[in-house]
């Protein structure tokens, strides 16, 4: 059992046929392996194939090719053992019975997972306590807020105390307060304290940067790069970023003439436009860029910072995480 905790993915393909000729290469030849106790992140834009990959690993989908072992068990031949050792959490979607109470839900899942009868009661009490849901234990799930539902989903995932967790977009659709809670919980409680091996997917770069020990960039079914967040950021040839925050409508095209910049990314957030320029010498091109921006928009602030994961992603793929 000392292999438990490993996820080894080798040469996985999953291609969906759409009609006669069309096909979607959702997972297009992916290899990676996750060490025991590691918190590994898959970061990629919408449609990158993250969920498909998770479904393959959790035996919901049969890959077209490749091999996967989870905790030393083969997903084709020992799928029941694989499922016994994993907990799967998906964000945003319904994964609980809304007509039942938290206790009833957890009891049901405890039976499915074969949690020993004697320990079911204690386990459920412990989990509800852990998630701070004890006083909601007998309220129907439909009456809980979406943050509480997600907490309960976490309790459900832990009901059989699996050594490996597959977590797909855990903070999708949650307000910042609950998103914070879930992130801290995943990092501090599940990974650090309980030592769970975690594969987490997200398209929030901050989330991946903050939580994960290693990150794989995924785009169009392929892994583009894989390393620790720090090293990924160091891998950028240009060590500085010029960021201009402004209001108005900007198109990436207006920067076409700028030569000294390695790459320029325009993204929108909260009604503001962020222009990020990767460069080695921001002082040189500063005035040039500001000129160009001023023609179209009103500048709110200008600063020089270091590259983020988003910049690395743009640099590697030319695609943006947010607008992907």
């Amino acid at each position, binding site marked *: *059992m000392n292999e*438990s905790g490993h996820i080894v993915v080798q040469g996985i393909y999953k291609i*969906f046929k759409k009609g006669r000729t069309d096909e979607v290469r959702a997972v297009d030849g992916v290899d990676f392996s996750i060490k025991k106790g590691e918190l590994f992140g898959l970061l990629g834009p919408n449609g990158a194939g993250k969920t*498909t990959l998770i*479904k393959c690993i*959790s*035996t*919901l*989908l*049969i890959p077209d090719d490749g091999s996967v072992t989870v905790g030393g068990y083969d997903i084709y031949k020992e799928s*029941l*053992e694989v*499922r*016994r*050792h*994993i907990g*799967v959490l*998906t964000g945003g*979607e*319904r*994964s*609980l*019975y*809304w*007509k*039942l109470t938290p206790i*009833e839900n957890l*009891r*049901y*899942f405890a*039976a*499915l*997972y*074969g*949690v020993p*009868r004697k320990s079911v009661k204690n386990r459920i009490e412990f989990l509800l306590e852990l998630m701070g849901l004890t006083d909601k234990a007998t309220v*129907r799930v439909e009456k809980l807020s979406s943050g509480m539902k997600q907490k309960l989903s976490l309790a*459900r995932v832990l009901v*059989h*105390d*699996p*050594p490996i967790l597959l977590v797909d977009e855990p903070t999708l659709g949650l307000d910042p307060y609950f998103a914070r809670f879930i992130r801290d919980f995943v990092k501090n409680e599940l990974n650090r304290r309980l030592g769970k091996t975690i594969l987490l997917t997200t398209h929030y770069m901050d989330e991946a940067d903050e939580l994960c020990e290693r990150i794989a960039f995924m785009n169009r079914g392929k892994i583009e790069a894989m390393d620790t967040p720090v090293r990924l950021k160091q891998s950028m040839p240009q060590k500085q970023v010029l960021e201009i925050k402004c209001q108005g409508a900007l198109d990436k095209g207006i920067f076409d003439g700028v030569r000294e910049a390695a790459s320029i990314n325009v993204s929108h957030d909260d009604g503001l436009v962020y222009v990020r320029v990767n460069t080695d010498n921001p002082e040189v091109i500063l005035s040039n860029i500001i000129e160009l921006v001023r023609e179209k928009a009103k500048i709110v602030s200008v600063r020089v910072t270091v590259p983020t994961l988003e910049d690395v992603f743009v640099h590697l793929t030319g695609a943006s995480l947010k607008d992907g």
Partner: protein
Amino acid sequence: MNERGGGLSSRVFHYLRAINAENIKEWKIELTYKPDFIRQFLEPFVYLFPYFLYGFALLGGRYSEHLRSLTGIGDMVAYTFIGYLFIGFLNTACWAMGFSLRKEQWFGTLETIFVAPVPRWVYVAGMALHSTCHQGLIMLIQAVAITTFFAIVLQTSGIFLALSAVLLMLLGLYGLGIVVAGLTIALKQWWVVSEALSTLIVVVTPIAYPLAVLPFVLRKVAMFLPTTYGIIGVRHFLLGENLAVSLPTIFLRLSLILVVWLSFGMLVFLMMDRYGRKRGSLSVY
């Protein structure tokens, strides 16, 4: 939880526990839709009476000399009632079991339960258990109410054999149910299959009429259905209907049918499950 699944007996125990958990969960969810729950208990009565009234209109009463000459039972109401009472289990197979996975999909819980370490047929089996209990309860109420209302006298001496015939019929129907459950994975319009199957079975099963009135082809079809022998058997034991085939033959065929149907059902289900996991089609409606 880190050791392997354990031996065969502990695995069987685990599956049984999961099946029962499924059953309990279904009861709880059903009880939250109270009006619907009450309706389900009233419906069989509203459903049954037209068949009696049709008979009344034809006969001008409840006694039929012709039925007596065919079956040995002259009371049209008793004859029809026993037939319709036990065919109620057809709902279990064609609807409840077939619906089980689709329903999880509507709840949004399908993928969540599919990553639990039990084979997927366990959920269908859980639904079968639930629906059988549910249907059994409805039937019990129906049986008491109708026999009292129409003063039908049942023979109680054969009750044990009657129940074993019903049990064998049920197991055979589960085979059918799991086929339908498998088809729901691959077919969008699975309910048409369900509807067609249940209509066909209702037509050829001797519910309100003996096999003798059926055309040759339909009679042959009826030979392959567990419901035929189940209903014939139970009516023989409870009302003393004349038998065209001997009792041992009935039980033998019932057992044979149940083995064939259950294994065929499992085969179809496992194939469809595999197909679904290749296509990823279960998650899209």
